[in-house]
């Protein structure tokens, strides 16, 4: 609830950006990253989704910030659920969407590195 009412890291960065859709409801989210020396120094999100989408994106950006690209690429839906101390099962699609948006941004970053 706190991550919904006080979401962290709202916004967009001029860096690798991933967009994902929640197949359950059509909500969309983007997560964008700023990367320095293979480390995520900042992560921001935007979503027009429900409370779950906002909370999950907030959690995902918190998890991403400070991680290496290698660590971050292992982030799963369950990591987001755990970070939020659990989530109603009907909101798992929101966590999946946030994880996918994050992973897409990471893939873009890894692609541009190579």
């Amino acid at each position: 609830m706190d991550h919904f009412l006080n979401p962290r890291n709202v916004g967009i960065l001029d860096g690798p950006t991933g967009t994902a859709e929640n197949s359950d409801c059509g909500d969309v989210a983007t997560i964008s990253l700023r990367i320095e020396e293979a480390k995520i120094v900042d992560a921001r999100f935007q979503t027009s989704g429900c409370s779950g989408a906002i909370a999950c994106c907030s959690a995902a950006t918190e998890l991403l910030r400070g991680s290496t690209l290698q660590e971050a690429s292992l982030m799963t839906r369950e990591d987001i659920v755990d970070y939020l101390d659990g989530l109603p099962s009907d909101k798992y699609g929101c966590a999946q969407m946030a994880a996918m948006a994050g992973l897409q941004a990471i893939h873009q970053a890894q692609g541009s590195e190579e």
Partner: protein
Amino acid sequence: MIYLDYNASAPLNEAAKQAMLPFLGDHSANASSLHRLGREARKAVEKAREQVAKLMGVVNPENLVFTSGGTESDVWALRGVFEEKHNPERNSLLVSSVEHPAVLDTALWLAEQGINVEYIEVDTKGCLYRLPVANQTRLVSVMAANNETGNLYNLKSMALWARREGALIHTDAVQALGKIPVDVDAWGVDFCSVSAHKIGGPQGVGALYIHPEATIAPLITGGGQESGRRSGTLNVAGIVGFGAVAEVIAPRLNERSRTMATLRDRLESKILAALDTVHVLGDLEHRLPNTSLLAVPGIKGEAIVLEMDAAGVAISTGSACSSGTGEPSSVLTAMKLSNVKIQGAIRFSVGIENTEEEMDQAVSALIQTVERLHTVAGQITNV
């Protein structure tokens, strides 16, 4: 908490609560018992029947049967009519596509039992616009007022049409009662469902009006209470509370309607003035005086409701995402509104206990909520 969700449930009226208390304490007894306490309970039930009948525009209270609420009344009217075995060639049910789930789900159930179900479609304002050609219709069911949009439907003309077709007509007046004049006898309907808790009575009580010439099989069989029409020990305290609040409302109905309309109009006009993307859904010319269904494009109604809740204002989505299924409102879907409007629908429903200050505070809370959620959304828009 600023409570603006009266269409979901109205707070228990003080007179209703006081009237109920004896029957939750020393006076609790079975209204079918022969002893003094039983007879007193029975007397209280009959007084309540008169009080509720008066608010419904029913001259003969004997035509009212108490039930467990609006849903039971709706389900009974539909299933009870089709349980009757005479006239088997009349096998069709005609319902509007914006009925409460109690009617729509029962219609689906009846369809599974082999009943031919037809729907009256609505336009984007939720107005009925096409009556299917009558096809051996046994029962028509059209609500008096819609729970989400607040739209009012002309029961008098629907009842005339049904009569001409030789069909019975049921109306769900759960949302209309206590907000606008409900005049069952003048409407000429055969069945009418009402609920206590929507008007400030207790939850778990309702009634079904049954026209004396209309035949309907019981839904609940057993001890033969309510003249054999609805078995089960009477919920005396609940029924007494229903009667008490009906008596409070009946002489003040018009004044109450005006108060609600003043509050609702203040709220709505201030919101529309402050938020130019917001617009009102429904039939603005024929609407309950207390209801305002708004579309806030680009953000989720669910997120608005939860954030307003945190800000101390209780509102509801357009019945969307009910029980977290994520399924859009059947009413708004029937109105063929875009997904953006459906997802961003929020409902304010005020009551006479609300104040003008509360309206203004709710407007401020909504403005802040919408601005914040727009910031979170940024350039993202759902399709």
